[in-house]
C-alpha cells in the first residue's frame, strides 16, 4: 500500500481491455485484451490502419463513446489511478479538459462555428480554473502566442471559419493545453494538414508537452509521423496490440510480421518504380474474427500454432510482441527490413 502511494500512478493505464459494440448482426469485437500504459511525461504512439481500435481505446478511457451502445467484457481503465467507468457525469466534466484533454482530427468540427475563438477558449479555461474574465483572456492570449499564432489578440476576435486549417488546429492544441492537463490524447491531429504545417504542429505538441511534463497519447495511421515525436509505440491490428516497445527499437527491429509489412509498404524504403510490398487480403471481419492470431490469414510465416491466440512475449530492450513465431526465440534476430 505504501509502495503504491510513493509511486505515482500511470497517466493512463488500460489493462487487458475487451470492448464490443452490440449490433443486430452480432457483437463487433472492437478491442480484444488491449493493454496500454502511458507513464508520466511520456509521449506514446498508437499506430494501426483504420478500424483497428486506436480511437476506440482512448475514447473508452475518456468515456466519449456513446453511453449504452458499447459493452466492456473484461479489463479495466485507470486515468491517474481513477476509474472513469465509475465516475458520474459531473466528475467526468471535471476530468475532461482538466486532467485529460483530446485534440481531434478535424478542427472545423471540434470548434463551434458561431462563437468567437476567444470566447471558446475563455469558457474552457474558466470552467476549470478559478479565474475572472480578464485573467482568463490573458491566459488565452498567452497560450495562443505560445502556439506561434501571429497576432493572438486579433485571433481571439475571429470566428473559426476565418482561420486556415493549420491555424484552427493550433487553436485546438492551445485549448487542449490551456488548463495544463496531465494527459493529452492527440487523435490524428495532423492528418488533415500539409506536411509543412504538420511539422510545425508536431513540434508544438512535443515542445509544450516536454516543458510542462504532460503525457501524450499520439494516435496516427502514419508510422513515419509517429516516429518523429514518440518515446514508445504500440502497433494495433484488428483490436489487439501486436507489438510495443521503444520507438527506435520497433522501427529498427520490428518483430511482428504485421509491423514489418507495414514498414515495407512505405515507398521510402524501396527504389523508385519497384513494386511496393503490399499486404495480401483484408482485415478480418470483427463480427466473426478468425480463431487464433488475427493476422494469420495474411501472414507469410503462419503455421499450425497460429490457430491459437498468441500471448505477449517480452523481449530484451522493452519490446513486446504477440506472435508464436517469436515466442520460442527470446533473442532478437537482426532486422529484416532493408534500410
Amino acid at each position, binding site marked *: 500500500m505504501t509502495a503504491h502511494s510513493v509511486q505515482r500512478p500511470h497517466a493512463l493505464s488500460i489493462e487487458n481491455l475487451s470492448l464490443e459494440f452490440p449490433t443486430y448482426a452480432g457483437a463487433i469485437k472492437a478491442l480484444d485484451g488491449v493493454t496500454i500504459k502511458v507513464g508520466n511525461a511520456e509521449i506514446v504512439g498508437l499506430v494501426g490502419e483504420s478500424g483497428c481500435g486506436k480511437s476506440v481505446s482512448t475514447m473508452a478511457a475518456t468515456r466519449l463513446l456513446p453511453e449504452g451502445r458499447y459493452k466492456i467484457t473484461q479489463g479495466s481503465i485507470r486515468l491517474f489511478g481513477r476509474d472513469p467507468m465509475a465516475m458520474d457525469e459531473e466528475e467526468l466534466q471535471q476530468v475532461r479538459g482538466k486532467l485529460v484533454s483530446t485534440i481531434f482530427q478535424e478542427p472545423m468540427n471540434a470548434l463551434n462555428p458561431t462563437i468567437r475563438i476567444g470566447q471558446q477558449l475563455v469558457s474552457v479555461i474558466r470552467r476549470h480554473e478559478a479565474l475572472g474574465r480578464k485573467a482568463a483572456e490573458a491566459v488565452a492570449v498567452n497560450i495562443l502566442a505560445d502556439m506561434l499564432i501571429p497576432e493572438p489578440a486579433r485571433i481571439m476576435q475571429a470566428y473559426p471559419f476565418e482561420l486556415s486549417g493549420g491555424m484552427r488546429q493550433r487553436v485546438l492544441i492551445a485549448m487542449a493545453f490551456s488548463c495544463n492537463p496531465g494527459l493529452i490524447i492527440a487523435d490524428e491531429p495532423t492528418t488533415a494538414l*500539409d*506536411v509543412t504545417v504538420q*511539422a*510545425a504542429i*508536431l513540434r508544438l505538441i512535443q515542445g509544450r508537452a516536454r516543458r510542462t511534463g504532460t503525457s501524450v497519447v499520439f494516435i496516427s495511421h502514419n508510422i513515419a509521423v509517429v516516429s518523429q515525436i514518440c518515446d514508445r509505440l504500440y502497433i494495433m491490428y484488428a483490436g489487439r496490440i501486436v507489438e510495443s516497445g521503444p520507438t527506435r527499437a520497433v522501427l529498427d527491429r520490428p518483430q511482428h510480421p504485421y509491423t514489418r509489412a*507495414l514498414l515495407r509498404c512505405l515507398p521510402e524504403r524501396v527504389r*523508385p518504380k519497384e513494386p511496393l510490398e*503490399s*499486404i495480401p487480403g483484408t482485415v478480418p471481419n470483427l463480427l466473426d474474427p478468425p480463431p487464433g492470431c488475427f493476422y494469420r490469414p495474411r501472414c507469410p510465416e503462419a503455421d499450425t500454432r497460429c490457430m491459437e491466440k498468441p500471448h505477449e512475449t517480452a523481449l530484451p530492450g522493452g519490446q513486446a510482441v504477440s506472435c508464436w513465431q517469436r515466442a520460442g526465440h527470446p533473442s532478437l534476430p537482426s532486422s529484416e527490413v532493408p534500410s
Partner: protein
Amino acid sequence: MKAAPLLSVENLTVRFPGATNWYGRVTSQVHAVNNVDLCVLPGESLGIVGESGCGKSTLVQAVIGLVGLTSGRVLVDGHDFAGANGTLKRDLRQKMQIVFQDPQSSLDPRLPVWRLITEPLHIRGGMPTAALRARAEELAISVGLRSDQLDRLPHEFSGGQRQRIAIARALSTDPELLILDEPTSALDVSVQAQIINLLLKLQRELGLSYLFISHDVSLVRHFCDRVAVMYLGQIVETGTAEAVFDDPAHPYTRTLLASVPSLKNSLLDVDASLTGELPNNRRLPAGCYYRERCGSAVPGCELPQALLTVRKAGAEKASPHQARCHLHIPA
C-alpha cells in the same frame, strides 16, 4: 530523340471571381493558377506536388475541362482542347481520364459496378449491353476485381476496391493519359501500396502516361519520372524526380522536403520560421511569391522571378532542371 508531348499546357491561368460589389461586378479575383507551362510525354509520369490550396487540383481540372481557362492553351496530341468541337473534341476527351481522391463520392451509389465501369462507354453510345458487360468484366479483372463482383453496389466495397473501380472506369475508353488527383490519400498505407503497384503495372502493360497529383513527396518520388513543385499557383521548380528531390534548387522545395516525416531523420531539425502557410491568393505578391516565408531572401527577390535552368553538369537536355529563383543556392 524526343517524342512529341501527349499533353502540353502553355501559359495556363485560371482565376475565379472572389467577391462582387453591389452591382454584381467582380471586385477581386482568386488567382488559382498563374501562367503554368508543362508537358507530359507518352509513357511518362509527371508528378505535381505542393501544399493544399496551391492550385494543383484546379490545374488538372482546367486541363481536363472541368474548370474554364482564363487564358492559355491546353494541347492534347497537338490539338487545342478548349477550342476543339464535335468529333475532334470527343476523341481528344477520350484520350484523358481522371481518377479522383475520394472514391466514396466519385462513384454513383445506385449503379452496379459493371454500369459504373462502362459509364463513359454508355455515354459515348453505340455499344450493346452485352458488349458493355463483357468489357466491364475484362476491365474489372485487369484492376484486380472478381467477375462475380460486377453486380454489387459501391457501398459493398472497401476504400481500396472502390478506387480500383474508379481506375477501371477511367480505363474504359482506352485513354493515353490518366490524371490521378491524390488517388491514395484516403487509403491506408497497405492499401495505398496495392493501388500504386496496380498503377505501375497498368503503365507497363498499356503504356499509359500519368499526371499524378499528391502532397506525399515520398510517393511522388517513388512513382514519377518528372516532378513539378507548385507554390501559389505557380510552378517554382521542375525537373527529373532525382534532380528535384536529391538536389532541390528552390528554397520552397527544400522546406517541403525537410518537412516530410521520415523514419530516418528527425523533423525537429527544420527551422520553425519556414514552416508557415500559403499567402492569400486574392492579391498576388509582387516579385517572388515565396519571398515572405523564404529564409534566404535577399535584395533582388522583389523582382518577378522566371523559371531558370539550374546550371549543373550532367543535366539532361530533354527535361532540364529549372527553378524560379535567382539565387540557386546549393543546399
